[in-house]
C-alpha cells in the first residue's frame, strides 16, 4: 500500500516550517558573524576614557552614543557593523581628533548609562586608554634637531585642541594656531597630562640640539601627541590598551 501524497495544507505547513528554520538561522548566523571581526582584530581600538577591559567593554556598552554627544571636541565615534559585536561601540580616532580633556570632568564617563566607561575615574590623570610610543624615531623632528613652523597638521585639518592660554573653556581648530618653534616639541608642549612626555638630550654635548621624546608612566594614552605630530605619518602613536612598561 502506498502512502497518500501530502495534502496542500501539509505541504504548506512543511514549507512554512522550513522557511522559519531558514530565516531564523539566517538571523542568528548574521548576528553571530559579528564575532569574526572581534576575534580577528589585530590592533585594538582606542576607547574613550574609563573604558573597561575590551571584552567587558563590548558586553556592557549599550550602544547609545551618549558619550559621543557630550564630547566637546567630538573625538568619539561609534563603530560600524564591520566591527561585528563592536557595532555602535565608541572609539577615538586619535590621529584625526584626540581626546584633549577640554571637558575637564571626563564628561563621557559621566554620560555613560551602564558604566562601560567606569565611573570609578574622576579625573584625567587616572585615565588609562593606552600608552604613547615613538613609532618612527627617524621621522621625529626633535630627534633630528629640527624646528617647526606653521600649522601642525596643515590649513585643512579640522581637529580641535584646547589652548589654556588662549581660551580656557573653548577648544579651537589646530589650524588656527600656527607655531614657530626652534626645536619641535609639539608632543610635549600640547600634552594635557603633566609629565607624561619629556624631551631628553641625545648626547652629552651641550651644543647638540637633538632631543628624543620619552614617555613616562603618567601617560594616559589620550592621543593628543599623535594628533599634533607634524610628520606624516605621525612619528609618535598611541598603543591602544597598552600598559606602561619601563624602557
Amino acid at each position, binding site marked *: 500500500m502506498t502512502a497518500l501524497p501530502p495534502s496542500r495544507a501539509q505541504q504548506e505547513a512543511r514549507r512554512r516550517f522550513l522557511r*522559519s528554520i531558514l*530565516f531564523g538561522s539566517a*538571523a542568528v548566523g548574521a548576528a553571530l558573524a559579528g564575532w569574526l571581526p572581534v576575534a580577528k582584530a589585530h590592533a585594538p581600538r582606542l576607547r574613550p576614557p574609563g573604558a573597561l577591559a575590551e571584552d567587558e567593554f*563590548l558586553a556592557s556598552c549599550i550602544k547609545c552614543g551618549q558619550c559621543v554627544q557630550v564630547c566637546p571636541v567630538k573625538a568619539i565615534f561609534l563603530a560600524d*557593523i564591520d566591527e*561585528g559585536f563592536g557595532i555602535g561601540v565608541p572609539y577615538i580616532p586619535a590621529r584625526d581628533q584626540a581626546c584633549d580633556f577640554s571637558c575637564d570632568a571626563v564628561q563621557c564617563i559621566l554620560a555613560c548609562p551602564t558604566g562601560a566607561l567606569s565611573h570609578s575615574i574622576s579625573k584625567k590623570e587616572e585615565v588609562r586608554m593606552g600608552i604613547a610610543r615613538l613609532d618612527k624615531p627617524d621621522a621625529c623632528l626633535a630627534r633630528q634637531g629640527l624646528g617647526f613652523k606653521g600649522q601642525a597638521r596643515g590649513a585643512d585639518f579640522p581637529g580641535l585642541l584646547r589652548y589654556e592660554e588662549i581660551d580656557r573653556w573653548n577648544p579651537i581648530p589646530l589650524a588656527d594656531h600656527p607655531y614657530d618653534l626652534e626645536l619641535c616639541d609639539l608632543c610635549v608642549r600640547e600634552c594635557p597630562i603633566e609629565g607624561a612626555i619629556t624631551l631628553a638630550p641625545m648626547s652629552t654635548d651641550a651644543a647638540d640640539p637633538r632631543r628624543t621624546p620619552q614617555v613616562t608612566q603618567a601617560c594616559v594614552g589620550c592621543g593628543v601627541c599623535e594628533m599634533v605630530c607634524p610628520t606624516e605619518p605621525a612619528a609618535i602613536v598611541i598603543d591602544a590598551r597598552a600598559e606602561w612598561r619601563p624602557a
Partner: protein
Amino acid sequence: MSLIQSLAVMLGREPAKPKPEDYTEAARCLHDCKRANKRSREDNARIQHEIHDRARVHTWRNRRWITLLVVNLLFVASYQFDVQLIEGALTASRVIGFHMADLNSALQVTLAFKTILINLIIGTGTVLVMWLLLGGRSFCSWVCPYHLVAEWAEALHLRLAARGVVKDHALDRRTRTVLYVVFAVLALASGYTVYETISPTGILSRALIYGPTMALAIVAVLLALEVVYSRRLWCRYMCPIGITYAVVGAVSPLRVAYTPEDCHHEGACRKVCLVPHVLDCTKKGYAPDVKVGIGADCTRCGLCIDACPTGSLKFEVKGLDKLL
C-alpha cells in the same frame, strides 16, 4: 481572554474558538441574535461600500506617524542642535536628565555583562512603567523607526501582491519565541550583546542620530525581503524586542477593546493588522463576551480602528469608565 492565553497566543500558539462554557450569557445571546438576523443582498452591498470608504480613513495612522517622527527627530535634534531633550539613542537615553533604557537592550547588556547596573535598573524601571501605562508594544508602532519603514515596505508589498507580482510567504509565529531564547542564551554564553549586531531598531536609530552607516545594509535586506517575499517578516515573526514589550503590554490598561454588537464580522481589521491573531475574537461567534480586550501582542497601532466601519474597535483605558 485570560492573561495566560493572551501570552500563549503572543508566543505562537494559534488562537482557538472559545469553548461553549467560556461564553458569557450576554455574549451567547448576542451571537444567537446575530445568527437569527440574516443579511440581505442590499445589506451586504452596503457593508462592502462602508468598508471600502473606511479604507480612506487614516486618523490613528497619521497621529502615530507624527508621534513616531517627532520622537525620533527629538533624538536627532537633541544632538544636532544641542537641544538636550532626549540624549542618546533608542537603546538608552536621558530624557531631560532622566535615565531611560530600552528593555531589550538592557536585557542583552545584563545577560552579557552579568552585572546588575544601577543606572540600567533606574532606566529600565522608568521605561517599564511608561510602557505599562502606554500599552507595551505601542513602543513598536509609535516609536520604533524600523516599524515606519516596514509599513512603507508593506504598502509596496501589498500593491505588488494585488497585481500578482509577489506573494506573501508566512513563517511560523513561534520563530520569534525561539529567536528570543536563542539571543538571550547567546548573550549569556558569549558575553557579547549578540542581538545588537543585527538589531534594525538600534541600527536605524543610531544612523538617524549619528549619520548613515554600512549597517543600514541589514535594514535594506530586511525591507527587500518584506517587499518581495514575506509581509512584515521582521516585526511579525522575528523581532525579539516585540516579545519583551508584548509581555509588558499584556497587563497594560491602555488597549484596543472590541465590542461585537455592531460588528459585521467582515474582517477588514484583520486584513490591515500586523498581528491578526490578536483579532481572532472578531470572527463571527468568536467573542466570549460583549466586550473583549485585545491581546498582548497588539501594537496599539490603531489601523484596525481606522479600518472598522462600525466603531466596534476602540482604544480604551481599562477600568477608567468604572473610575469616572
